[in-house]
């Protein structure tokens, strides 16, 4: 029973579907302006506070009250509640993003003066504390190597732990899960101290980027393991059954079915693991110690990294060093962003997850 559509006319005009009416939008704009004006009067004439931040909050408060009153008059109670709630939720989301944007802006403005080409191509070994110039290449290289190494250690272990927690039956599961949970509560400086006492003192090794990576992987492991476990739990049991019913062994099922199905989620787990440690400073203080010179060998000699450099430069009273620290912090944030974007792109490449369809129709 296919109905034929008349295509002789040009492109059909698409209807614009929206939950708000023009009246609603007019109302919103007028309330925003009205509450702004009232808040301005309150802040300049009546309230004992002034300045942009109190003004912002006063505006928000006045807006909420005004908006409620106006919508309440125009619509019924339920609709008014709905409007107000959706506004509060949107405002909440904006308030969460605000500090983030402020931090980024602050770091950028304080550090912009030190950002130059040489910042990415030189180290600080020949730069005096009062000089400008020089760069943070040694720290960038150090961060990349230390994070890279800790990913190499922690990702296989973490995913194996998750597979164990989720796919293996047995009495060991509960204690292991408890242990992983306890591990995620370990303060980062304790992880550093652990590597310091075991690797540096007991085993007599030198501080190095490798030692730092060991400490970082201790911190990364529980995050990856627990996140990956949650992700693996989302893989439908029917897929495991289907695989087993064709004669696959359990490990083959995990390797060929469960892990590929959960790939995007596992990448998220790795990203979260990196995010957990990339800004860690405390464990590095006693493992890689830092340096102002370029050291591209993580296994030998002290090595710097972005958070450690930022920490060490910031404890310096000189303006040039402080500026470098902020620039370093900005580069660190940017580096993390680049890493996450790459990871996301990798995760979404290839077979896209199937479109969610309704279960019963």
């Amino acid at each position, binding site marked *: 029973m296919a109905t034929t559509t008349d295509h002789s006319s040009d492109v059909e005009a698409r209807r614009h579907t929206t939950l708000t009416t023009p009246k609603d939008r007019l109302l919103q704009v007028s309330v925003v302006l009205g509450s702004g004006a009232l808040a301005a009067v309150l802040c300049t004439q009546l309230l004992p506070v002034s300045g942009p931040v109190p003004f912002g909050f006063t505006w928000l408060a006045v807006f909420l009250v005004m908006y409620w009153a106006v919508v309440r008059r125009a619509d019924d109670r339920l609709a008014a509640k709905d409007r107000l709630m959706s506004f509060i939720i949107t405002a909440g989301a904006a308030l969460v993003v605000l500090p983030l944007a402020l931090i980024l802006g602050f770091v950028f403005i304080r550090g912009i003066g030190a950002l130059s080409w040489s910042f990415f191509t030189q180290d600080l070994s020949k730069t005096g504390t009062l000089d400008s110039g020089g760069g943070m290449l040694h720290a960038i290289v150090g961060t990349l190597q230390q994070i890279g190494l800790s990913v190499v250690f922690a990702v296989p272990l973490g995913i194996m732990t998750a597979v164990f927690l989720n796919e293996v*039956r047995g009495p060991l599961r509960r204690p292991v899960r408890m242990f992983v949970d306890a591990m995620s509560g370990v303060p980062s400086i304790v992880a550093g101290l652990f590597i310091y006492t075991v690797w540096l003192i007991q085993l007599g090794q030198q501080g190095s980027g490798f030692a730092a990576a060991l400490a970082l992987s201790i911190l990364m492991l529980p995050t990856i393991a627990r996140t990956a476990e949650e992700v693996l739990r989302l893989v*439908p049991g*029917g*897929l495991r*059954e*289907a*695989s*087993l*019913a*064709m*004669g*696959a*062994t359990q490990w*083959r*099922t995990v390797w*060929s*079915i469960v892990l*590929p*199905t959960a*790939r995007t989620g596992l990448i998220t787990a790795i990203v979260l693991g990196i995010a957990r440690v990339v800004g860690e400073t405390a464990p590095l203080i006693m493992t890689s110690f830092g340096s102002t010179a370029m050291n591209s060998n993580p296994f030998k000699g002290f090595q710097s990294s972005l958070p450690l450099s930022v920490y060490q430069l910031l404890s310096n009273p000189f303006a040039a060093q402080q500026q470098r620290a902020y620039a370093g912090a900005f580069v660190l944030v940017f580096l993390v962003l680049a890493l996450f974007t790459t990871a996301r792109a990798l995760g979404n490449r290839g*077979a*896209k*997850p*199937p*479109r969610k*369809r309704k279960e019963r129709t």
Partner: protein
Amino acid sequence: MTVTTEGVTAADAVAKGALQAQDISAWFGQRKVLDRVNLFMPPRSVTALIGPSGCGKSTFIRILNRMHELVPIASMAGQVLLDGEDIYAANVRATHTRARIGMVFQKPNPFPAMSIRENVLSGLKLTGVKPNDADEIVETSLRRASLWNEVRDRLDSPGGALSGGQQQRLCIARSLAVDPDVLLMDEPCSALDPTSTRRVEETIHEIKDRVTIVIVTHNMQQAQRVSQQCAFFLAEENQPGHIVEAGPTTEVFGNPKDPRTDDYVNGRFG
């Protein structure tokens, strides 16, 4: 409890894929769900298992390819003979048995991370077989599951993008690709629309000359349409499930010996 071995003929004994369940009992924890079930499923034909919900049909069919033991608290007793050999014998690997006895589930479950083609070949990949004629296997399996014409142009698109009925036929194709002797189907059409159901039934007709089929169904008409043998399971109140009557489908539906069977197949209870 009737032992239904009367249907065995000389030809049946020669063809591969004869399944014989002997004194099968099953428990979940302390609860007994099946009580000494005996059933012969002749090779190269369709056996339908019917009965009200909760009478142990699914448990029974999962015992036939050792999927029952995957449930942590499940246990069973008795023997399942595939061509005369007990699949629960100590020296038989569960993975080997499952490769010979395929299964299609109630809910279509193609592997979402794989393309249609990879889905069909997944059974081979999972059991470590490297086929020389992969393309041919894909085509034959999809043809047998009567899905080939619909997907031949998009073998590399993900299996999860198909409609529910197509997904189920993809799952059938996937099971057929490993060339099993037996195919178990646990309510394969209960999540499908009538058209897809008809296609799956056609598929069953298509493949029943090559593989022994055991199908659980709640649809009386379907049981009559697709099966040659039929077994009626029933679990009376607080009793484990057992077979009330089994035999040729025409007999069970046309001339049931037990009044309970008569009531059930004519829709008077259940």
